[in-house]
């Protein structure tokens, strides 16, 4: 299979959104309060909606007859190109919110910039997603602040979550050869150009949350090349169950 830069970057964005959306859907029926139950389902729905548009676009670019379901459900683990951050388990509520803040603090400016992509469909998806991600940044930041600057126990859990998840933040900024080609073609923004905005969001939220970023020598990597953490296989077993059991089942 030849993967053009446009196909690959679209697929990666779709995989990020799908896998995180799936993780959020795992909270259904388990959220700490009713409002949060609705909020987590809404965040997940936004991401799965973005993923659907992106997969449909990726399938059209590829031109091999794969639709959104074929791409979402019928690939093997090493064919998923999402960052490792989004496949990390939900953990406790603090871990879910810290993961959401890291992802959305990056994706909000990413979509804002991609709204002027030379690819009209990516631009259209981004123009909508930018506004949705603003809600995600706000919601997750409010919770990270409430937990970090809350009780001793909530602070400890929020700090533990940040220590565990921050090593996965660096991968969001990775640029390999196909990504570089897509940036140069004006399809997607250069992540480096978003770093100041990302840092400002994280710094502001974490300062108010009284949380500190762990000092790291290097970041975890591998997801963009299809090398995943041990959690991904279990996630896919659940995500793909229906399509693997009843191939080509449709709604």
């Amino acid at each position, binding site marked *: 299979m030849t993967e053009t830069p446009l196909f690959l970057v679209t697929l990666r964005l779709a995989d990020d959104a799908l896998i995180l959306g799936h993780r959020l859907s795992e909270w259904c029926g388990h959220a700490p309060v009713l409002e949060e139950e609705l*909020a987590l389902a*809404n965040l997940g729905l936004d991401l799965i909606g973005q993923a659907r548009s992106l997969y449909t676009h990726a399938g059209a670019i590829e031109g091999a007859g794969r639709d959104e379901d074929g791409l979402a459900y019928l690939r093997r683990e090493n064919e998923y190109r999402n960052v490792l951050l989004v496949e990390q388990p939900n953990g406790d509520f603090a871990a879910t919110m810290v993961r959401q803040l890291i992802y959305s603090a990056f994706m909000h400016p990413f979509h804002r910039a991609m709204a002027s992509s030379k690819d009209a469909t990516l631009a259209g998806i*981004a123009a909508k997603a930018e506004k949705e991600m*603003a809600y995600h940044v706000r919601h997750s930041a409010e919770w990270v602040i409430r937990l970090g600057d809350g009780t001793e126990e909530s602070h400890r859990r929020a700090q533990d979550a940040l220590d565990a998840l921050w090593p996965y933040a660096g991968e969001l900024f990775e640029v390999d050869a196909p990504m570089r080609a897509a940036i140069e073609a004006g399809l997607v923004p250069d992540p480096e150009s978003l770093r100041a905005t990302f840092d400002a969001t994280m710094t502001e939220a974490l300062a108010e949350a009284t949380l500190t970023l762990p000092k790291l020598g290097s970041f975890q990597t591998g997801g963009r090349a299809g090398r995943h953490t041990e959690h991904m296989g279990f996630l896919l077993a659940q995500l793909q169950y229906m399509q693997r059991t009843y191939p080509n089942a449709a709604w």
Partner: protein
Amino acid sequence: MGAAVSLDLERQRAEALAIAGEVCDPEVPVLTIADLGVLRDVRIENGRIEAVITPTYSGCPAMNLIALNVEVALEEAGFTNVKVTTVLSPAWTTDWMSEEGKAKLAAYGIAPPRAKAGRRALFGEEVVACPRCGSANTQKVSEFGSTACKAHWRCRACAEPFDYFKCL
């Protein structure tokens, strides 16, 4: 003859546009897709009629049903060879909702989106008037409500909870 045909085609297009535009949002049944700005265009070409719609929120589960209902409405009106296409660009925003649509929403008990969707990411406060008593003394309960497009608010003056159609 040519002019008569194109006039006839234009009349058919206007009729199809009006029929498709009357289809309601299944989640907010007081709003038509014309009110929402979801119906983008209707085209007639070589006897084929194509209705173009655009999603509101990325994950809006109503889109499939809206597409189906548009197809059914046009076929029931006697149009054959109907196709519904979804376009993503330019992206829909709440600014596209008609004034009539906003008035219908308020009358239905849902606070309409405030003009001009902002770009506030972190913090900041919004003021939303209660759709029941009109008071501005209201409070956000959650930015996420019963559907992707609504937030959950309550009025401190009349004590009623209400939905607010989120700005996008």
